């Protein structure tokens, strides 16, 4: 009976398959000159100021089409084949050259000539002026592009654009003399203070990529003069390596190589990104050779590909890390000794193994170790239970006595959708802390709720986080984003950490013109943060992709999206 059913099913499937293949003339999912990437999702929008900009899969779509002003010279592949950037060597992309006048605080941007968009329009200063004007209009769902220009102290990019006084806001949204077109290929940008972040942020494609103004303006309407609907739902016209071919949200997106691309046409003429929600299916499809690339697997799944024929895994210890949040506004986490005790109780090596299959290492600082200006802690926290116990006693909780009063504070929150990766990690942490009589319980919560509590309410008492990274390659960027107090201009200080000493150093570093002095101030800040366990860095883990062994050239960029242009056979 069973074998009969099997035969029948097999016959049916083979019959349908053969008929289909005979008529369609194709058997595999991807053909030789194509690239098929299987991903956990496809872009939900393509507007840098759109509602889905925070989603990595949206960013991945944007960076294929948007062209940045600068990026960094490659410095060669790491041991797995991932090509890494040399952050000390910025290189012009849409910029041919740039000059900085420290006295006048002006940047003169010399634009590349002969660059053409997917629509065939030539890149000129008008495109850059349009891009900056759109950012200043703050007319999208999220003022993402404005944010990085405001962070870079560009004249005119002030908080006045959000004024409740309409006249003030409207006036502030018009480009003034902060951005000036000199001629078709020269633009001058004025800063209000010394601030290296403007230049650093130019490399952030998902925020500072340049639009094809002519094409965008074609789709403007009276109600939507900056074409947000078009960018959110139809296309992202720019000067990048790929042009949009077809896009079905929640299903797949396909690109064609830009025939006009100024760096030469991409090797893969046709790239398709298909949403395959089930990670196991991405994995098996790659193994059969019907896809050339997969992403979004957990470390154990990547590990399982190691010995598979015809595929390889490339990974980089880039800027992804896992840390523990202990909120200073939640007792007893305002007690530094208790924070240090927890830091000495964390089973770092076990987490590297059970959470990341060995593809991680202990994080010994507060910014990514691959970034310039990273400071390694002189004596990193290590798993030392005797020291943890002693510190717990010094904190006023010998053998954990008295901590039962704070049971609610020790609910360890994490994103429930990441159970496959974070489950083993939180279990390892919980087991280690319970051995010290710290009453930890696990609290998985949905991503949206986690984000709301982290970013808006800032009331996550005790949590594990693996999704924050400074996309701008600068220690100061990270300081402002994560650690400086709100009063001193900090943005996403989820731990409610407020240290006047640190804030004072930031005030100096922010406008420090001497790079050596600035590095020293930023180094001092990092040491203070490690001493106070402002957040508890646990591990840096690899950003990984699974690839056909015929695909080479994968490069790492700090937004962690692959650039299809760099891929070759």
């Amino acid at each position: 009976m069973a074998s009969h059913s099997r035969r029948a099913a097999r016959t049916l499937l083979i019959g349908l398959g053969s008929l289909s293949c005979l008529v369609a003339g194709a058997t595999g999912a991807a053909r030789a000159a194509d690239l098929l990437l299987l991903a956990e999702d496809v872009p939900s929008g393509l507007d840098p100021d759109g509602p889905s900009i925070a989603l990595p899969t949206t960013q991945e779509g944007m960076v294929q089409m948007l062209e940045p002003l600068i990026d960094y010279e490659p410095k060669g592949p790491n041991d797995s084949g991932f090509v890494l950037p040399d952050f000390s060597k910025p290189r012009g992309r849409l910029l041919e050259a740039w000059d900085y006048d420290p006295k006048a605080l002006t940047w003169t941007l010399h634009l590349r000539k002969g660059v053409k968009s997917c629509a065939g329009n030539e890149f000129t200063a008008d495109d850059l002026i349009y891009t900056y004007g759109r950012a200043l209009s703050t007319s999208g769902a999220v003022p993402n592009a404005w944010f990085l220009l405001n962070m870079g102290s560009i004249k005119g990019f002030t908080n006045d654009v959000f004024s409740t006084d309409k006249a003030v806001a409207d006036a502030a949204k018009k480009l003034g003399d902060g951005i000036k077109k000199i001629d078709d290929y020269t633009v001058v940008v004025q800063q209000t203070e010394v601030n290296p972040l403007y230049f650093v942020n130019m490399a952030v494609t998902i925020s500072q990529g340049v639009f094809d103004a002519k094409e965008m303006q074609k789709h403007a309407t009276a109600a939507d003069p900056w074409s947000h609907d078009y960018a959110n739902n139809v296309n992202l016209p720019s000067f990048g390596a790929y042009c949009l071919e077809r896009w079905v949200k929640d299903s797949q997106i396909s690109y064609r190589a830009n025939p006009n691309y100024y760096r030469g046409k991409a090797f893969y003429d046709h790239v398709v990104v298909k949403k395959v929600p089930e990670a196991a299916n991405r994995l098996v499809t790659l193994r059969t050779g019907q896809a050339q690339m997969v992403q979004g697997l957990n470390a154990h799944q990547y590990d399982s590909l190691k010995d598979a024929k015809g595929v390889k895994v490339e990974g980089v210890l880039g800027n992804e890390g896992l840390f523990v949040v202990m909120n200073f506004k939640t007792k007893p986490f305002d007690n530094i000794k208790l924070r240090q005790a927890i830091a000495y109780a964390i089973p770092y090596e076990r987490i590297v193994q059970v959470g990341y299959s060995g593809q991680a290492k202990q994080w010994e600082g507060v910014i990514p170790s691959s970034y310039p200006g990273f400071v390694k802690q002189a004596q990193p926290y290590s798993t030392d239970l005797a020291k943890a116990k002693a510190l717990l006693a010094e904190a006023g909780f010998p053998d954990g006595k008295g901590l039962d009063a704070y049971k609610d504070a020790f609910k360890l929150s994490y994103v429930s959708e990441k159970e496959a990766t974070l489950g083993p990690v939180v279990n390892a942490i919980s087991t280690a802390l319970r051995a010290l009589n710290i009453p930890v319980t696990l609290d998985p919560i949905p991503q949206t709720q986690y984000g709301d509590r982290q970013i808006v309410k800032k009331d996550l008492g005790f949590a594990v986080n693996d999704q924050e990274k400074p996309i701008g390659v600068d220690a100061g960027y990270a300081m402002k984003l994560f650690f400086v107090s709100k009063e001193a201009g900090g943005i996403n200080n989820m731990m409610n950490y407020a240290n006047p000493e640190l804030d004072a150093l930031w005030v100096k570093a922010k406008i420090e013109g001497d790079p050596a002095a600035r590095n020293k101030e930023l180094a001092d800040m990092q040491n203070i943060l490690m001493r106070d366990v402002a957040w508890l860095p646990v591990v840096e883990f690899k950003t990984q992709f699974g690839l056909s062994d015929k695909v080479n050239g994968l490069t790492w960029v700090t937004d962690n999206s692959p650039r299809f242009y760099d891929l070759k056979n």
Partner: protein
Amino acid sequence: MLLRYIGRRVAVSIVQLLGLVVVVFFLIRLMPADPVARLVGLNASKEAYAQASHSLGLDQPLLTQFLQYFGLDGRGGGLLEGHLGVSWVTNGSVLTEIGQTLPVTIQLLTLSFIITLLIAVPVGIAGASRPGGAFDRGVFVYGLFGGSQPEFWWGLMFIFVFFFKLGIAPAPLGLVNPMDMPSEPITGFILLDSLLRGEFDVFLDVLWHLALPTLTLVFILSGPIIKMVRQNMVRALGSDFVLYARAAGLRESTVTRYAFRIALAPALTLVGILYGVMLGGAVLVETVFSLGGIGQYAVRAVLAFDYPAIQGVVLVITSISLGIYLVLDLVYAVIDPRVARS
């Protein structure tokens, strides 16, 4: 009489629908998180948050939001004019997005239920013809076996065996080869569209891609439907009128036909209920086979706290379910006119 009955049922359905829309509107706003945070990401300055909140209309009082949703705030463009709003994740029209995802699920379910009925009815009748016999026991074991594992598990197992090991099924990458460029949809039902265009290669390709997801659903659905048909047939075959028919010397096939008509109504009810449940419940099969149906859309909407999308999905699925129940009631009324009179 029948028309009055239909009118009454439609009126009740509309009231039910309206009540549900109101309840869902307020209930989802009680969820323990603010969707604005997901939009602003790291750039959560006070100003950015305020702007995002304003762009979603969440800075308005709840009553104003409610009136806007229905289009009663004087600006129009609300639910009463057929607009389901704009998704907060994609910024696309919810109606359009549901129009893309719903046909995928309906197509899958309809195909699965047709095949299930083609298998379950004869198997159920055959089992009932000799209760306790070897065939009947086999069917009982199958019912237990098929229903004992969740559908995503069977789906993954089928993929592993038929695609990965045997290589006779397509990759679980949706309804068509992702490298092909499908034509623009006409109805949204890709099988139907391919026939309308005369694209038989596409028709066969889609059928091939639907084979494993359909097999998975048939495997799961056929268990309870076989049981229902079998039990009702056993009951009908044991009733007095069958005894009389046999005593009158009617052929066994005629007797079976009479009994089947009696057994049909409860089985149809079960099919109708299962169809309504599976509209949202097929999400696991949709996910495993990357089909992108309405269930997947609903789950994403809930996880992202995408209020307009959640409201739209609830409204559409409820409407379809109420429609199915209405049709079932009408079929009942035709089979048994006493239902309409009551």
